[in-house]
């Protein structure tokens, strides 16, 4: 399958839904990917089953502040820099790129880099959604070392780092970012084809493409149904953003919003806790959905996802919850991306009280 001007808009729509409030806006990434395929031709999407065992797969994406990336537009050759640094560090040539995060801009940017390099893109990712930290990847669960961690700023500044472990990879990258301009391209968890088959979340780009198609369904009700069916999601509440508080600290923007139920959900109130993504949904003081399940806030008018930075009081929204990829449901997965990893003293409750089928 090829990624080209015909299906990239669907990919970008789909990755925006998979952000669970984070991941950044995919609109600019789409413009850049379209420009790259116009100049360099389409990108081949390869399946895990098509990978040779000795192929070298490089997970890559953007790290830093998505809002800054709206201004600080890419040079375009960051992918080449990342691949060259891998060759420098390991003596291997990269055979395929993979988005380390399927959500938002990060699900689409690797298309630009792959097109410009003439490399295929692997139909997989490391998160199956958006997460704020680089080590929150399925490859960590599979024991793939994060090193070498490569960061480049598009200005020719490149860091090749050898972090002691996964968490240090995140710390080192985040620490370097402010000096690098607030946003940069990163690669880590470089692996073989054989490793990729057991270590990644399979079919992420295909899922995003299918979601994008669901998002193009006529009629808002029908569209919501199609999106939920594609994700295996259910609607938690439909209502209006009533209270919205934002605070910052701990490295990420965070806050909470209360959704007050509309006609069908009269007198219900669901509190959404968010950091870079929506992480908890609470009703009557109890968690009814938690990270790593995907809590997505969609505009009730259009079904378009609303990111945490675009959340405003008064918005009419539908909150949907979809199950996280299986890799995250293990105890090891929950330890890395469960509620406790984000500072909440709540047990992971897999879609425990998600109500009202869409």
């Amino acid at each position, binding site marked *: 399958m090829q990624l080209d001007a015909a299906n990239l808009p669907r990919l970008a729509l789909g990755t925006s839904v998979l952000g669970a409030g984070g991941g950044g806006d995919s609109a600019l990434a789409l413009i850049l990917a379209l420009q790259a395929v116009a100049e360099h031709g389409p990108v081949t999407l390869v399946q895990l089953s098509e990978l040779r065992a000795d192929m070298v797969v490089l997970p890559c994406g953007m790290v*830093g*502040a998505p*809002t800054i990336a709206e201004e600080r537009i890419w*040079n*375009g050759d960051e992918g080449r820099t990342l691949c060259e640094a891998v060759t420098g560090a390991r003596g291997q040539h990269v055979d395929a790129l993979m988005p380390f995060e399927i959500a938002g801009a990060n699900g689409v940017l690797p298309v630009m880099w792959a097109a410009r390099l003439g490399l295929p893109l692997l139909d997989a990712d490391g998160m199956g959604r958006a997460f704020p930290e680089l080590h929150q990847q399925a490859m960590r669960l599979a024991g793939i070392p994060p090193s070498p961690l490569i960061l480049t700023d598009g200005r020719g500044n490149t860091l090749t780092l050898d972090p002691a472990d996964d968490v240090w990879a995140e710390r080192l990258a985040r620490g370097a970012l402010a000096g690098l301009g607030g946003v940069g391209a990163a690669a880590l968890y470089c692996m073989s084809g054989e490793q990729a088959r057991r270590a990644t979340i399979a079919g992420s780009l295909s899922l995003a493409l299918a979601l994008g198609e669901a998002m193009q369904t006529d009629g808002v009700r029908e569209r919501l149904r199609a999106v939920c069916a594609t994700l295996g999601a259910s609607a938690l509440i439909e209502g209006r953003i009533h209270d919205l508080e934002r605070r910052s600290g701990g*490295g990420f923007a965070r806050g909470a919003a209360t959704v007050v139920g509309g006609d069908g959900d009269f007198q219900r109130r669901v509190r959404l806790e968010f950091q870079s993504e929506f992480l908890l949904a609470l009703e009557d003081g109890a968690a009814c959905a938690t990270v790593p399940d995907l809590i997505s806030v969609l505009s009730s008018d259009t079904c378009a996802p609303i990111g945490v930075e675009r959340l405003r009081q008064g918005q009419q929204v539908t909150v949907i919850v979809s199950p996280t990829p299986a890799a995250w449901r293990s105890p090891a997965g929950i330890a890395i991306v469960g509620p406790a990893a984000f500072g909440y003293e709540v047990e992971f409750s897999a879609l425990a009280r998600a109500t009202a089928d869409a």
Partner: protein
Amino acid sequence: MPDLRLGVDLGETHAEAVVLDDSDRVLARARTPVGENVEASLRATLDAVSDGEGVDPRRITRAVLGSAAALEAVERRRGLRRVAVLRIGAPLTLAIPPLATWPAALRGAVSAGEVVVSGGAEYDGRMVLPLDEVAVTRFLATVAGAAESVAVTSLFSPISPEHELAAAELVRRELGGSMRVSLSHEIGTMGLLERENASVLNAALFGVVEGLLETMRQTLEPRHIDAELFIAKGDGTVMTPEHSLRFPVHMLGSGPASAIRGGAWLSGAVDGVTFDVAARGATVGMLVNGRPHERTAPIDLAGIGANLRLPEILTLALGGGAIDERALTATLEIAARVQPVATYVVLGHGAAARELAGRLARVGEAIVPGDGEVARAVGLVIAPAGGRADRICVNRESARATTLQAARADALAHAIHAGADPDGVRIVEIEEVPLSGLLDPPIRIAVRAAGPLA
């Protein structure tokens, strides 16, 4: 306090004008279709209101003009200046060249050449590379003769405009002081592509606004109207002619904003939904807290994404007289998401307006205010002047306080510069959003000020 005030809206299909006295009574009103000769329509409309009872043109001390001329120029690619497009940001930003997202015909009509040179800032205001003055000079030499204006967009210029200002100086040196320059930091906010697009459109529209102001002068003078002139902006505020000469792009989309404001004023509604009824359909706007509700998504203008502040508009087809129930229900639902108050202000006086009002009265309070057919012109007369400021600062309380104070002062100064009364201007909105994804996220602070005209 001015004595008599004139509002004139030159729309795409019709022109309308009103004269208000110092107690805000509508003394005269006129509405005429706009044909190929826009000036003739303007003259006819002005003659009609000048003849109104109690209207002595010499007593008109303020005139506010709204015009679709800028929008028509972009849509029809007519009267646009050829723009030399200079982007400062390399090696960043090269992944997408300037105007690459524009429709080919419009790009062809506007561009006198495009270049990306090195320079620009980072988000914290650091200038990490010098401006490549040699490349700028070389580019200006290649477009000399072809370019009628220049648009300059520098990376992070809303934070640090240094290189845009330096480039403007180079343009003056190389192409002469009469070459008009549009600097992106004066036009838009963060989001380089949309800001660049808005700046290029601005530079392309310099001639349109010059022509419009000249027409206005030539029309007012023989009618003995010696009024202070203001021009309507798309966000529902107004600006001085000097301001409009520099920022004609802000004229885009002023008609709907004027209609919403005028509808609010005529009906007394503070919250509600306005229906500006024309021959083919109604333009539907949402009135929130006395102001037009703004779109949050980037605007698509003739196929170009631009980060202009325009009101959210829905259109309701009213062809053939019969109301399409499904379309109306859908429109009301969407409007209710933004504005749940079921107060419907119907602007117009024909059969279509009456029928729509009758239908809306079944689901809410329908108001058909007197003079609704000239609501746009009324909205112009009563519009305030506004200003904005947009900053980013590090997440320290002292920096936040200093930046907020500076942004407030800037927004107020911009509003006063646009014509607001220094005694009446106030801050109407402050937005603070942390930029997630960094340790110690910086905060983006956006402030808006508005006030009645001095």
